[in-house]
């Protein structure tokens, strides 16, 4: 029978010919199907049900099956199929749950033949048996599949998938009794038509609904499925477990999939939403479609190859109310337009780059530059894949270049070191800040260091401050710095004249702060500048002095304090350093213009609404009224934002933690910092951060998956989580091989023989012997 079918349908002498052409339909199509001799096509949709003849240059409407003044819902088709044996026989699946057959041989206008209304919900798919004339299968939203014998009035058998709605049913082309059904919950089931009680096998093919499936026309074991998860998968079901052998990732959910005749590895797909193109894929090359048809203006709803044995013509119907015949030769080939290039990062930051030979040789040295100043050793490698004659692909030869990164420049050492050395809790706020400032300074990150110091100043309790400063030796740059920076930006750089303009002792005091200022300037400009080391020393030399100058009013009468300011002589020579540094002014200008103000300047912005010389009036209330810590919050928040955006989420999070509830939490910084820490395998730090975070969503991170499943060491069965005795073999599990007691707590064991025990005991044991303490003779290894 099977043989015969193939003989009759095989392409005879009358080869199919035609061109890419289309015609307008009156309404959107839901599905199309061709008759056996490939001369006619039926289009079905909610408001359309027509047969068109395929002629050389055009479609010609043959028959309108949608008759009657007010057509019933039985005409509203979700699917249609033309029988491959009997060219008068059609079946449709109606959205109201009816399965209808049509006999074109009927003399009357209404060709409706039989009506089965056994399904309770929409019927998604009908399928004729490829070789048996009277057998029709349907799959419905209600979860049932029904097999009809067209000679009878009702279904002969009902198959219950037991798992939600059926989206597609397909008879196997080669196995007489087998059919496949795909389901909304991602499963695919294979059934034997003779056994309606239970499916033969089931496997989960997709995540989410499987919209379609198609048997390979030649290879009996291959089934292609397409799902909402945007994947097309090819399954080999000849093996015990269905094995995924190919997978194509598309850009939208896959509505239909059809194997291309005569081409073993080709299949056509169209999508349910968003994407209107039809793709033909070579499943062995799943990254770029082999060919695309881009004619439709709305989603393609039905595709079918025109003839069983002719790979050259594809028919498609669409929601845009057109019916197309695509000639394969006219398809666009994305491969031709694609530049075969590949880019990949190596483990240590190396970069491999493969591109067309012609591009590489043409580009020459100009390519070289972007990849850094340092150790760029580029060595092109050429290799060829042995051409496979069965594959019809253009062969490209590419040049592969590997760029080695300069390990030094992109090192994340500072990150790791900082993470390890920062203190986030356990000490008073001031000390934490000082410690972290010191760490940052030692790692040559002065800006960060300065930020820490300023935070301390801002948030320390005025009462504690005096003590805090006396304890700390570290550099504390008082707030005033920022005023000075503003000053320079606004007032230009006349160093001497500035001194002249200075009024009163307060002004002198600000000048005395200049060294710190120069430090900041340098840092802002370039963290690696050697010069920044120098001023830093001065700064910290001054620190104590400044503290004394700036904070005396904590314990003294505020009215007297103006007189207290004195001009430290040491500061003067330093001023020249700033002047000497030519890059400072431009740099500052830049900074002022740029929207992202650094922490330092942000302060200036907020504290000095009036520019330049208003220092005295502004700074006074600062000290007199003990600005509440919350006064700084916006600035600090901006500063943190700046750090986070600049990529230094470490700083942002560390500050957040140290500040504790002084500032609002920012959840996603935490998550990214934790993520980074874990990538650098800084588990301890990451756990500390999780623990210290004030955000409870983060906090519960280390409370997830805290369950440890253990198997009994004797019977190898899973232990129930009660007690230390296995339920099944009634033996104590996890006994120390040395002391023979149950280990509660840290259990260390050899991966080789799986014997082990208390950490201490094993350590002691291994000092004297390298054999397993259990006496199994294994030479235990612990790393």
């Amino acid at each position: 029978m099977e043989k015969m079918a193939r003989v009759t349908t095989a392409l005879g002498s009358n080869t199919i010919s035609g061109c890419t052409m289309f015609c307008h339909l009156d309404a959107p199509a839901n599905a199309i199907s061709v008759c056996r001799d490939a001369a006619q096509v039926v289009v079905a949709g909610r408001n359309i049900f027509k047969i068109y003849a395929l002629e050389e240059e055009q479609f010609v409407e043959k028959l309108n099956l949608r008759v009657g003044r007010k057509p019933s819902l039985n005409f509203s088709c979700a699917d249609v199929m033309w029988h491959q044996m009997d060219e008068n026989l059609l079946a449709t699946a109606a959205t109201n749950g009816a399965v209808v057959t049509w006999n074109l041989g009927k003399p009357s206008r209404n060709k409706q033949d039989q009506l089965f209304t056994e399904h309770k919900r929409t019927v998604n798919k009908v399928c004729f048996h490829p070789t048996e004339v009277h057998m029709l299968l349907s799959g419905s939203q209600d979860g049932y599949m029904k097999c009809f014998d067209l000679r009878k009035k009702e279904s002969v058998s009902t198959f219950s998938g037991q798992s939600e709605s059926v989206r597609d049913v397909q008879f196997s082309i080669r196995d007489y009794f087998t059919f496949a059904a795909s389901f909304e919950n991602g499963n695919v089931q294979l059934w034997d038509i003779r056994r309606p009680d239970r499916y033969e096998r089931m496997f989960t093919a997709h995540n989410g609904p499987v919209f379609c499936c198609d048997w390979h026309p030649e290879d009996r074991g291959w089934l292609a499925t397409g799902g909402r998860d945007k994947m097309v998968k090819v399954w080999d079901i000849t093996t015990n477990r269905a094995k995924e052998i190919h997978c194509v990732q598309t850009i939208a959910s896959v509505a239909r999939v059809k194997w291309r005749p005569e081409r073993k590895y080709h299949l056509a797909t169209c999508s349910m939403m968003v994407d209107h193109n039809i793709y033909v894929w070579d499943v062995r090359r799943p990254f770029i479609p082999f060919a695309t048809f881009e004619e439709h203006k709305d989603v393609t709803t039905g595709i079918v190859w025109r003839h069983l044995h002719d790979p050259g013509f594809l028919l498609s119907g669409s929601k845009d109310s057109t019916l197309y015949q695509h000639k394969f030769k006219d398809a666009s080939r994305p491969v031709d337009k694609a530049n075969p290039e590949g880019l990949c990062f190596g483990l240590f930051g190396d970069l491999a780059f493969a591109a067309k030979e012609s591009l590489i040789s043409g580009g020459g040295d100009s390519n070289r530059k972007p990849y850094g100043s340092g150790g760029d050793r580029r060595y092109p490698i050429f290799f060829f894949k042995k051409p496979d004659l069965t594959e019809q692909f253009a062969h490209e030869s590419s040049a592969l270049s590997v760029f080695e990164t300069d390990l030094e420049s992109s090192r994340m050492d500072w990150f790791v070191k900082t993470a390890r050395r920062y203190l986030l809790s356990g000490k008073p706020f001031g000390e934490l800040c000082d410690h972290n400032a010191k760490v940052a300074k030692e790692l040559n990150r002065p800006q960060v260091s300065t930020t820490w110091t300023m935070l301390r100043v801002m948030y320390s309790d005025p009462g504690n401050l005096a003590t805090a400063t006396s304890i700390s030796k570290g550099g504390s740059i008082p707030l005033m710095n920022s005023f000075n920076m503003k000053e320079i930006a606004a007032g230009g750089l006349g160093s001497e004249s500035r001194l002249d303009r200075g009024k009163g002792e307060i002004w002198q005091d600000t000048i005395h702060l200049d060294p710190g200022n120069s430090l900041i300037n340098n840092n802002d400009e370039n963290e690696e500048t050697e010069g920044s080391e120098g001023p830093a020393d001065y700064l910290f030399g001054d620190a104590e002095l400044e503290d004394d100058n700036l904070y005396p009013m904590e314990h003294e009468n505020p009215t007297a304090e103006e007189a207290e300011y004195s001009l430290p002589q040491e500061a003067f020579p330093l001023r020249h350093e700033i002047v000497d540094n030519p890059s400072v002014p431009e740099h500052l200008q830049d900074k002022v213009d740029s929207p992202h103000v650094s922490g330092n300047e942000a302060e200036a912005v907020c504290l000095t609404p009036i520019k330049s010389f208003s220092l005295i009036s502004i700074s006074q209330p600062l000290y007199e009224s003990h600005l509440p810590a919350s006064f700084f919050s916006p600035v600090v928040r901006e500063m943190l934002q700046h750090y986070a955006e600049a990529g230094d989420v470490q700083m942002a999070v560390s500050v957040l933690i140290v500040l504790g509830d002084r500032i609002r939490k920012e959840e996603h910084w935490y998550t990214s910092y934790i993520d980074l820490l874990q990538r650098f395998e800084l588990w301890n730090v990451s756990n500390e951060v999780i623990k210290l975070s004030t955000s409870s969503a983060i906090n519960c991170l280390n409370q997830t998956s805290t369950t440890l499943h253990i198997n009994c060491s004797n019977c190898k069965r899973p232990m129930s989580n009660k007690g230390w005795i296995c339920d099944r073999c009634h033996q104590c599990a996890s006994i120390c091989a040395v002391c023979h007691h149950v280990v509660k707590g840290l259990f260390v064991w050899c991966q080789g023989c799986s014997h082990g025990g208390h950490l201490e005991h094993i350590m002691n044991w291994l000092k004297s012997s390298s054999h397993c303490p259990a006496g199994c003779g294994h030479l235990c290894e612990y790393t």
Partner: protein
Amino acid sequence: MDISDGTGRWDGLGSRDISTREIAMENVSQEVLSRAEKIGPICEEVIQPLRSPVRSPDDLNWMLARLLMLSRRCPYADVREKCLSVLQNVQDIGVRIPRPLGQGPSRFIPEKEILQVSKVNAKTQVIFEDAFAALGRLDNISLVMGFHPQYLESFLRTQHYLLQMDGPLSLHCRHYIGIMAAARHQCSNLVNLHVNDFLQVGGDPKWLNGLKDAPQKLQHLGELNKILAHRPWLVTKAHIEQLLKAEEHSWSLAELIHAVVLLTHYHSLASFTFSCGISPEIHCDGGHTFRPPSISNYCACDIANGNGTLDEIQGNHALTDTPCEVEALMEKMKQLQECRDEEEASQEEMATRFEREKTESMLVAAAEDEDSVPTRDVSRHFEDPSYGYKDFSRRGEHVPTFRAQDYSWEDHGYSLVNRLYPDVGQLLDEKFQIAYNLTYNTMAMHQDVDTSMLRRAIWNYIHCMFGIRYDDYDYGEINQLLDRSFKVYIKTMVCSPEKTTKRMYDSFWRQFKHSEKVHVNLLLMEARMQAELLYALRAITHYMT
């Protein structure tokens, strides 16, 4: 912004770690007591600032209200007790402490019915703890949903993702859109809740003066909000185009999807809030009062909900009233199931049945007016307050029926959402499925009932009101299964939820348990959300093609 600085203090209370909670509690109580002492026993004026829209967390009243909330709603017993004792101490100092207005999370359901947070089963408890940890509060909505932990989990996950996780819109915008959507239904509960959140994530308080003070971009959304809330079938691709092509105020597609999901979420959540009679949150405006209880405030429902006496009487009364209602319903379901094949309705018949149901849904008058007192002037968050639900098909403006088979959530909606706002499609899909498939196979006092038919009837009836038709559904079933009072309830709840009253809630399905009524409300809410979403997404799809 001061708001942020005070809140950190409270976060520790949500920790699972008991010692962390203790420390946090200690902090809070010291802070409160010290402030209380400062104010001293004379503080008559505290009543005034109560109504001020923005209160700083350092305000003592704010703290006391929060303590009150925690003493009732915190899932941890230790925190509850401690809060209570702190409040007591404050009162001893002589400062007036607040007391909750209204009782329990819902005005319709007696408090003892709603699983008390301390007595819930383990699964609910875990979900509550998670929710509490994430938000620092446990809102009344979650408490009522606690009847159905499976759904609650999915709901909270979705909501958390929409509001907190990665998404194209900034955090404060999300809350603002929530406010806009809830305000459309005058749901002051949700509005208050999100006003607080909005300020907490650093939103500009000026926006709260009204939509006109919000950025242009959000103002544009007002139109879509209005249509989606009341007549979603009128959304066209022109609306979408207006939003996406507005020069510098234009939305991106991803942002729009996010906004649409938020809008529909909050429209339907407003429905749920009203239909379950959710009380205002204790710590929000209208949830508590500093006035001592007086006779004038004393009303019947206070007693009723306090210890449930009155309600019980009513309930018993209802039971004796119509004992056979449930049986009748079950009988009908059985009949429908059996005689489906015999009485084969013609296609025309089916079509007219849909039309009839549709027109009848129009006749079902949306309930009598009853004044609800919006404590915050919510109407300023939207424009055109006169715009309301109009019946789907009325003479004159004929809108074509939306065929569910042509644009379904599973096939089309999901794909679109997932493309533009990854993960949310999945979350919503799960939520819809859980809501649609949720069943305990019980009906009132009967066990092992297949309720799928009933659930489908409710779901499809709601979609029918929005003009969505399922080809494969016999709308005659609705008529058989849903009686008139129930239809009135559904219609009111879905179309103008602000008019829901306790009487309506009580009068449908009288023998059913409260948990079952909440279940129905969940169904209504999800069906409504899906309907709105389908219209919006279809318009977006049309725009894209």
